[in-house]
């Protein structure tokens, strides 16, 4: 168990010392949203109508940016071989790496989202739901993303394939994430959407480590 925490700690230390990668994800997220009011014009009604969708789409694409770095550095320098030959189970290794990935990308996105929501004139009623929905949705992005990252780890320039593999699988997260925020703004009950997001997270939590581990085993051969 402590070995798993050392792996998370190492990944966090590596991310911290290569902070430019985390910052690049956040800058993409912020810029994509900042450009929207300039693109569609300053009509506040239009902005608040598209706020939830814009924030979610930008978050989804920002999360894709860092995915190809999830396993590739470890694959290239031989660390992945050693991890696979270690007493840890590969599924646990995948889970630990997803956890670290979410802490350095998903969590900062959640922290930034309310600020950007102000910029997009999201009505106040939607703020809490936006944060809650992103807290449930972004871990799913990391977990499902790990499958795509694992499948492309042995492929030359596989990084470009990752979004193509992963985005179709996470569209439900986008639809119900936006649905929850829009519902909250309209004053409707959003427990249904949030529960579906939670269910998607649980399914990903159970299945993604096995799928990604299988992908990594293939890549090692």
């Amino acid at each position, binding site marked *: 168990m*402590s070995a798993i925490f050392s*792996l998370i700690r190492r990944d966090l*230390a590596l991310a911290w*010392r290569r902070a430019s990668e985390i910052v690049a994800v956040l800058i993409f997220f912020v810029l994509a949203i900042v450009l929207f009011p300039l693109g569609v014009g300053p009509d506040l009604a239009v902005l608040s109508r598209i706020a939830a969708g814009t924030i979610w789409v930008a978050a989804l694409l920002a999360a894709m940016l860092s995915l190809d770095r999830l396993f590739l550095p470890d694959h290239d*320098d031989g660390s992945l071989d*050693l991890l696979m030959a270690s007493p840890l*189970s590969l599924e646990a290794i995948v889970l630990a790496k997803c956890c670290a990935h979410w802490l350095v990308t998903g969590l900062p996105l959640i922290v930034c989202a309310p600020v950007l929501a102000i910029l997009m004139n999201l009505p106040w009623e939607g703020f809490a739901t936006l944060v809650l929905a992103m807290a449930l949705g972004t871990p799913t992005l990391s977990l499902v993303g790990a499958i795509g990252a694992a499948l492309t780890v042995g492929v030359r320039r596989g990084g470009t394939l990752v979004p193509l593999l992963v985005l179709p699988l996470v569209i439900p997260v986008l639809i119900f994430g936006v649905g929850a925020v829009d519902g909250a703004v309209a004053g409707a009950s959003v427990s249904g959407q949030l529960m579906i997001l939670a269910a998607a997270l649980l399914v990903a939590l159970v299945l993604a480590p096995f799928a990604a581990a299988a992908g990594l085993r293939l890549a*090692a*051969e």
Partner: protein
Amino acid sequence: MFAGLGFSLGSGEALVLRGPNGSGKSSLLRLLAGLLRREAGTLTWNGEDVDDDREAWRVVFAFAGHADAVKPLLTVRENISFWAEIAGAGTARVSDALARFAIAPLAEVPARFLSAGQRRRTGLARLVAAPRTLWLLDEPSVGLDADATESFAALMAEHRAGGGMIIAATHIELGLDDATNLVLG
């Protein structure tokens, strides 16, 4: 890749894999480490098929492949400590490992500043930091200078004297006395 291969290793023994490039020395080591699947045949440890209990098998051996698995952004000590913790050995022997490979003065230096030989020593230091019975070594001497090769030979002799086993792929003499040779290809 290969067929009709058979060997066994007793306590304190060493096996040296020889053969031209591409003859499957590295593949055999990866196969022993469980990174490649066997199409046929069995691999047993103390009479037990290793496929029956892979977790138990993985605490028997230490694998040192081509790549050193050294992270440039971590210091030498952090790199060695990390692998010792992953192996479940704790960090008690890390200082010992640093001393054995003469990299103690570099302990707090980020690994990106190391030379190829120093990086290789950092990678090999895992063998001391997390003791294992069987060492699977793929060209361990690549990048090591004469002194380091000699002290690594002494370390291997010590390991075998303590009942350890070594399977090494190599082109040059590693200083493994009375090792069995297995010629591939």
